[in-house]
């Protein structure tokens, strides 16, 4: 039983970045823009979030307040970085995949450059501890309390809140309806007076915000608050894309897909703690490959019937209706 608690407690901080970034990808792609730059956006957000923490960590402040402030900084910087994608993909009608790849390339190099120049290291190392041993009151709930409210991070609770808000925005608001129309049939949206360019900027911006937050949460929940230009976010941006596809571009399914991937990853890094797996004597590297291999298997089974937004990847050109 304690193994199960352990796995869940460790899985959630991993699942939340995946969930948020995949939701970001969903907003972007449902508006019609393929966002392969999520990896770079995450790293950008993580970097500025961590930089902020690094700058103010000497000040005596509640770590959870600091975390929320860092999150806001990360969200803002993720949004700024995503504007580069919107500008190229929406305004300049450039190839979205290539643009995304270039944005992914710039950031690790820029971080290494910056960190080497100013910290003489490969990234940022922070000392603030965001870990929550027990959430008051809630952690006393039998069963659930130990799973969700002990040995955790604030990121988990924020992540769940963002999921719920995302679902509401996506399905219940005028904004969500219009966004989905733009990714499916932009000509139709345009013909009823919806500004497709604006909606696509909005979709990509949401992915920037969520990507930035996801990146910061990755650095908090997975990397102990550190950011490195070398290892970056270890392909989490790409995994999030796979999560999004596996989740069929729908928020509810994306949630379960994120849990699935996070579970595999947690398992991979906890092999030594699980006697049964440890006993098999399989090289740890195989477990590390597991999420990537699982992505392939999942895509192989889902892509035949996968239903991507119809207009994704196609720049919208008003003059070519």
């Amino acid at each position, binding site marked *: 039983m304690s193994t199960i608690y352990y796995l869940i407690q460790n899985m959630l901080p991993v699942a939340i970045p995946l969930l948020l970034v995949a939701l970001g990808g969903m907003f972007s792609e449902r508006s019609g823009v393929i966002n*392969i730059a999520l990896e770079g956006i995450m790293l950008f957000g993580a970097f500025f979030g961590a930089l902020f923490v690094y700058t103010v960590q000497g000040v005596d402040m509640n770590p959870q307040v600091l975390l929320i402030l860092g999150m806001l900084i990360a969200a803002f910087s993720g949004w700024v970085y995503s504007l*580069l994608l919107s500008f*190229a993909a929406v305004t*300049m*009608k*450039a*190839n979205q*995949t*290539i*643009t995304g*790849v*270039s*944005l992914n*390339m*710039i950031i*690790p*190099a*820029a971080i*290494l*450059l910056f960190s*080497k*120049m100013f910290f003489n290291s490969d990234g940022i190392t922070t000392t603030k501890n965001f870990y929550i041993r027990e959430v008051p009151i809630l952690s006393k709930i039998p069963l659930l309390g130990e799973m969700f409210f002990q040995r955790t991070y604030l990121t988990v609770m924020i992540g769940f809140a963002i999921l719920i808000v995302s679902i509401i925005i996506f399905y219940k608001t005028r904004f969500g309806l219009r966004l989905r129309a733009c990714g499916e049939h932009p000509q139709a949206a345009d013909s009823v007076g919806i500004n497709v360019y604006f909606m696509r900027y909005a979709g990509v911006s949401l992915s920037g915000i969520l990507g930035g937050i996801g990146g910061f949460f990755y650095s908090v929940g997975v990397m102990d608050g550190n950011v490195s*230009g*070398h*290892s970056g976010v270890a*392909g989490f941006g*790409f995994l999030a*894309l*796979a999560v999004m*596809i596996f989740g069929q571009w729908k928020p509810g399914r994306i949630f379960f897909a994120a849990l699935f991937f996070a579970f595999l990853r947690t398992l991979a890094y906890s092999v030594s703690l699980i006697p049964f797996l440890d006993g098999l004597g399989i*090289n740890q*590297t195989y477990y*590390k*490959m597991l999420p*990537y*291999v699982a*992505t*392939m298997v999942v*895509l*192989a089974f889902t*892509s*035949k019937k996968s239903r991507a937004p119809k207009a994704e990847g196609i720049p919208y050109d008003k003059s070519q209706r």
Partner: protein
Amino acid sequence: MQGKNSTSQKNKNFLKNITRSSGFSAFSSALVAIILGLVFGFIVMLFAQPENAIKGFRYVLVGGLGRFGSVLYFATPILMTGLAVGFAFKMGLFNIGASGQYTMGMFFAIYVGFMWDLPPGIHWIVAILAGMVGGMIWGLIPGLFKALLNVNEVITSIMFNYIGMYLVDMWIQGNAVMFVSSKSRTNYLPSNVQIPSLGIDGSNVNFGIILAIIIGIVLYIVLQKTTFGYELKATGHNKYASDYAGMKGKKNIILTMVIAGGLAGLGGAFAILAPSAIAGSSMTYEPINIIAANGFNGIAVALLGNAHPIGIIFSSIFISHIQRGGSLAGLVGFKPEIIDVVIGVIIYFSAFAMIMNAALARFVKQHVTRKDEEVVKAKEAE
């Protein structure tokens, strides 16, 4: 009179053909992207160290000229990964997996280099071929996924970059012959496995670059002159029309990815089998769980070269040139990563430079050719 008219006609056509030709627009759009990228790099340098910025930037621009041998040496692997990306691009496939294919090729090459016992004259050749096979296998898998299961090759090849990297790192670390654990890098290869040097003073430029250029030219001929190239480009332009014309789309996807993988694998082999500065040493690999940068630089090379094999030969030399320049800029305190940023910026702009450029070409054509037409009309009026 008639003679004059026909020269003017010729001139007009000449201009038209130049501005219309895809080569021209690709070249000028690459130029636009490069200039913007360099300007961005200069601005970053200005911010970092204003007092040394001009000095550093001069190193970036012309520093490589004095070390052309070394430029070619480092151009070899990215020329190959550039071809790997560009060739697949002609088919409409975005082979972002060149990194994984490169790493796999490199592993196969050193495996043969260390573990097989072969006569000195052919050992390095077999090792190169092994590298090609390794890359082919790593290209084949995304090809199969795309052709048979319709899985987007971008995601697949990213995943296979990670899988390949983890596998190779594990295999190398687990092999005591290849791996020097105290230095956490691979051992020096025996000299008969190394690619023979061209003997240019002060550099280790070797036969690899010659082979790479020859391969580029062969690819050019394949694309331009053969039925396979015709099918490949037709599929890249319009998949539906290629089905309609009875081309075997699935077979061509798999074949293209295998060839692309082989090219990147050769890049890995050329890189690892190259002799290095210290006598008797060779290039080494550090298994530290990082995806090979040469694969991603191949994307930059391919885009700058407009996916055209001959263009890729030049763009790989250019990228290598500014990379050398970037290392030299270290002499005045800059970090070489600045070049990676510049390369990223160049790709970013080259993604829409074509569009800016098309507008420019339209402008030029309208103005130049209109004048010409007026001249022709005036003459006819005479």
